[in-house]
């Protein structure tokens, strides 16, 4: 009867407490209340396993390692993507600058000309001659 009740506990729990619980039960006459209590204990051990602190620490350490590795991968991928995006934006800027320069050479007013926010400079009514004439 004792062996049957102990077999209901999870293997990990039995490995830790099975021998001493068997020794505890040895020589005792189990009544119905004890049997119900052991059944409840087995159910509890399956539903809410209690891990020794060392194992919990190891489990937490493993989780921390997995999370850290995930973070490194995410940062690396984000960095690679960012570098690619930055390179693409840089290329677009260079291309735009080239097109603007080429457009100006062909007479395209480009940004800053009349109609684009900056008024055109009025024509000088009496421009000075480039070569001064000496009066005698």
């Amino acid at each position, binding site marked *: 009867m004792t062996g049957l009740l102990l077999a209901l506990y999870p293997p990990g729990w039995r490995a830790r407490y099975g021998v*001493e619980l068997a020794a505890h039960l040895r020589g005792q006459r189990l009544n119905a209340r004890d049997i119900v209590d052991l059944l409840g204990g087995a159910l509890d051990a399956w539903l809410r396993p209690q891990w020794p602190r060392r194992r919990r620490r190891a489990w937490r350490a493993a989780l921390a390692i997995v999370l850290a590795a995930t973070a490194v991968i995410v940062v690396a991928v984000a960095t690679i993507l960012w570098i690619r995006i930055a390179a693409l934006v840089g290329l677009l800027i260079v291309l735009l600058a080239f097109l603007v320069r080429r457009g100006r050479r062909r007479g395209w007013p480009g940004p800053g000309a009349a109609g684009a926010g900056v008024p055109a400079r009025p024509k000088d009514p009496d421009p000075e001659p480039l070569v001064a004439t000496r009066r005698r």
Partner: protein
Amino acid sequence: MPGLSELGRFEEPAVLVLTSLVDGPRHGYAIVKDIQALAGIRLGPGTLYATLARLEARGLIEGLPAQDRRRPYRLTGAGAELLRDRLERMESISRTGLARLARV
């Protein structure tokens, strides 16, 4: 430090087990006998070992090397501190309750 209240229905057995271990290391059967003499409560074997597992997992007690297949348990410093805090609160509640009852 987590309190004993997180143990749910094992809270009261945990207080009894910790109190039993204040005198020194005891194995399961000796704990049951001591609690029976102390509080008139007989802990079932399933409840006892579920409580021991919880207390050990939280570092409030620690198992010593087994003697004749029986493992004694010892109260840790954290367990003693938690028990003292708990018993002081119980004492305060008890004192207040008894004082109020005296006025009835």
